């Protein structure tokens, strides 16, 4: 499939279906993008399991850190790769070798590896590259406008408040938007 542009329905479908996310390259540094994204996804109700050999055994945002994907004791719906484009091949191989193969391989903003993507897609895994799930969640929920962002999404339907019931937290509503493709930001 074309990995330059994704329809908002494709991204929405992924973010609405996955529940458990393994984040490879999670960081304990509170100003690193991976930490910010992990924190945000947890606030949105996802279970995010950090993977980082250097931090294995420690706890990050209340979650135990694992050295390898294979060590995670629960089924993973999505692997979010916070490594460089080259390293994405090995991480993808590792994911595809799991007993229960994840439904989605997601490579972060600026990370793209078409070889890895082809392998994953050949095994029926959905792939997103060069995107940030926090940003994409923000675009689809409407929170993106709070930073003046152009979400590329139009709708005459009310934005959904997130089920967590907190102030200033929007959720991913039904897919009744008129949408452009989402651009890489």
């Amino acid at each position, binding site marked *: 499939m074309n990995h330059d542009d994704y329809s908002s329905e494709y991204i929405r479908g992924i973010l609405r279906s996955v529940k458990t996310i393994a984040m490879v390259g999670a960081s304990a540094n509170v100003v690193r993008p991976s930490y910010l994204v992990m924190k945000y996804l947890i606030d949105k109700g996802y279970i995010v399991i950090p993977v980082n050999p250097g931090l294995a055994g420690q706890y990050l945002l209340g979650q135990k850190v694992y050295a390898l994907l294979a060590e995670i004791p629960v089924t993973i719906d999505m692997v979010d790769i916070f490594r460089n484009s080259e390293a994405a091949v090995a991480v993808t191989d590792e994911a595809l070798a799991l007993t229960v193969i994840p439904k989605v391989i997601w490579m972060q903003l600026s990370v793209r590896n078409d070889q890895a993507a082809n392998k994953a897609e050949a095994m029926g895994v959905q792939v997103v590259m060069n995107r940030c799930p926090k940003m994409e969640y923000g675009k689809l929920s409407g929170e993106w*406008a709070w930073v003046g962002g152009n979400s590329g999404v139009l709708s005459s339907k009310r934005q959904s408040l997130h089920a967590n019931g907190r102030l200033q937290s929007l959720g991913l509503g039904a897919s009744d938007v008129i949408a452009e493709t989402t651009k890489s930001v």
Partner: protein
Amino acid sequence: MSNTPGFETLAIHAGAAPDSATGARITPIYQTTAFVFNDVQHASDLFALRAFGNIYTRIMNPTQSVLEAKVAALEGGTAALAVASGHAAQLLTFHAMMQPGDEFVAARQLYGGSINQFNHSFKSFGWHVVWADSEDVSSFEKAITTKTKAIFIESICNPGGRFTDIEAVAAIAKKAGIPLIVDNTLATPYLCNPIKHGANIVLHSLTKFMGGHGNSMGGVLVDAGNFDWSASGRYPLLSEPNASYHGMKLHETFGGIAFAIACRVLGLRDLGPSIAPLNSFLILTGMETLALRMRKHCDNTVEVATWLSKHSKVAWVNYAGLANDKHYTLHQKYSPKGAGAVFTFGLKGGYDAGVKLVSDVKLLSHLANIGDTRSLIIHPSSTTHSQLSKDQQIQAGAGPDVVRLSIGIEDAKDIIADLEQGLG
């Protein structure tokens, strides 16, 4: 429904879903200074940029957010930041990229207010403008030094109505590894999209055609998301760890919206020129009819300019929408739907004839603004450009014989009748 909404659809719907809390269909005026936190952790996350959300109206406000998202969509940018005026947008834009001793290159044909801001106030910050000629593209390249941080042009120059060859200037900026900033106030995104032609940042005075009704001050900066702020190491506010955010690197963290974020969380936070929620609301309402208005503005302007060009007391008319104008080709390339509604013409009677005309008109309003539904007239050398020397006035297209018109959306025959009696 088409997958890529048209301009008119975006102008109405972009950023403006029904209110999530109340279902209000029109964007409410959030007339509040601050927003309560869920808890201490939420407050901390908002202040540390870990969560999206509103804190304080000096930095953001939900009415303002809709305006920003709409302008960003219309310009084809990644994000926007709305502020108190076009001047404030310029201040925050340069604040994010300039350090004392730095230079930027700007077209000397700019709006007189910008010339003043750059020549005088910016100098006290140690930011030095170097002037180039928008009609001689090579002059931009010649003006670039190792200290140059940006190039600044207007898509259509105010008041001269001249067009700038945006792509040619963008190529010079790209070669030098610096961003091109384009003030698109006179064209609006309906007529011209500078980002499609290589601009990295687009600015507007929203006070003009965007709001369009002469009732609210506002400005905006649009991040095109197409400039690498970390490549050269010359934009440390974006590329280096920021001490006021615990060492966060804004470009690394926010990618293609990093510039708009930096202008908000550093410039707007610390310098404070925020837009009032009511002004955001009024400008939003105006923007819904931007396409309709711009079409009528441009149609009327062609009629008025054509009529003036044949008048015995008129020495010349500078309007790129006239087929014999020297900027007609650039207009056809950059804004084929119209050449805008602001232009100048010269009176054979010079300064005194200009003063007489602005005094004798009865329908046109004599005032220092443009982009209103009403037709407006001004004699720049006695008003907006009076602080400049005569040479500077002539260079800026505002010599003693020059009259500037901003044509409104009244019936064109009434505008022409008023000019006719005023010239008589």
